[in-house]
């Protein structure tokens, strides 16, 4: 298929990339840009491991056609840590609260939590649960994750 060029902002950097229009955003991130922080858990939009933030909203990148990224602001897990290596409060909280076991769901959880906290500084417990309802975790049982997000919200 003919390659096309798209321009979008990725983790605050403007990117001009040649893409195959049949790709998903997830494919571009992992296979082409080799940013493997975002995971493919199911490919159907059901597990949330592929969550990225597009224009402020959490989105499943496995269902996002790459051409639709044109002109948008995309943030991935790679863009969450600060440039000098300091963890974001959400990441810090997840580690401190024992909310990371195998770690496969963690990037998705961080992105969902970040999308929530960027929008609502003081989310209720129900808000937090709603924000991660599309992120499956097979290891932790979610309680520590919710506590971590609560403490990250309190700290901000």
């Amino acid at each position, binding site marked *: 298929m003919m390659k096309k060029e798209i321009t979008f902002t990725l983790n605050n950097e403007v990117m001009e990339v040649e893409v195959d229009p049949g790709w*998903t955003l997830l494919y571009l991130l992992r296979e082409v840009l080799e940013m493997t922080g975002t995971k493919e858990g199911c*490919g*159907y*939009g*059901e597990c*949330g491991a592929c*969550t990225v933030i597009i224009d402020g*909203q*959490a*989105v*499943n990148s*496995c*269902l*996002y*056609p790459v*051409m*639709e990224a044109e002109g948008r602001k995309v943030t991935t897990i790679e863009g969450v840590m600060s440039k000098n290596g300091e963890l974001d409060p959400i990441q810090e909280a997840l580690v401190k609260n024992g909310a990371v076991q195998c770690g496969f769901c963690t990037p998705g959880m961080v992105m*969902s939590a970040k999308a929530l906290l960027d929008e609502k500084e003081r989310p209720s417990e129900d808000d937090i649960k*709603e*924000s991660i*309802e*599309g*992120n*499956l975790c097979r290891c932790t049982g979610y309680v520590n994750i919710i506590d971590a997000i609560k403490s990250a919200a309190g700290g901000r």
Partner: protein
Amino acid sequence: MQEAVELMGTLGNAKYIAGGTDVMVLFRQKKIAPENLISLRNINDLVYIDKKDGLKIGSAVTHTAIAKDEFIKRSYSALNDAATRVGSLQIRNVATMGGNICNAAPSADTACPLLVLDANIVIAGVKGEREVALDDFFLGPNKVALEKGEIVKGFHMPQFGDNTGSAYIKHTRRQAMDLPMIGVAARITIKIGKSKVRCHDALCTIDNISNVLARLQDEELEIEDARIAMGVVAPRPIRAKQAEAALKGKVVSEKLFREIGEIAMSESQPRDSIRGEAWYRKEMVKVLVRRALMRSIDRIIRPDDTIYPERLW
């Protein structure tokens, strides 16, 4: 929008894509294989929430946008109930109501609320626009009355007054990211015969539901109009028209609601599936129709409350 329709006319093997949460999945499952995708995501003509003269919602409005609208939450509550429970937050951020309806799963959450809110669907094609009642739009599982190349432009609902309330109950095994086992929507318009204050008091108790309904019965709430719609009990979302007719003109009472539950149950034809068995779904129709009607009444009498008790009966 015109460009999209014309483009569809010129391309051979093409499909519209808006949020993509259904189309991309069908692609993956190899159920469809279009050569071209026409993106509707950035078409402003299809993104509108117009609140004059009823409610008009563009087909490309996302579920999140509908969920956040306070006017829809208050006056078209069943739609808010559905839009907040579709899939997950990530899905709702991009998925559009137009897509939810055009994909026409028998379990489509926004279908039942739109049916009870008397929605018409506006369709645009090369020959111009036409408006169809939503009830006539669903033809079967994943089949809708769209000619080749037509786009759904939006949904129009009439204006309702303060004496109308609606609710949608999505019965699921999980709290999120689940298709409903059955979905029931109701809309009811009542005339309060006696005291609204006493109705309010009756609904504010945590008393046994029979006692609450006995007190409501004393206040003579006459049902001027009612709609009931059910999902996952037939190959497409359906209205329980016999139950609706049986409600009209009657006074709200426990006996009436029990009868209505039975009538609605008789109008449903669920099947066994991995999500639930037919006998259970039929039983739940009986229960959820009553609960949806009660919640609709709660919303009429107590419109400013944000949480309505789960009246378990």
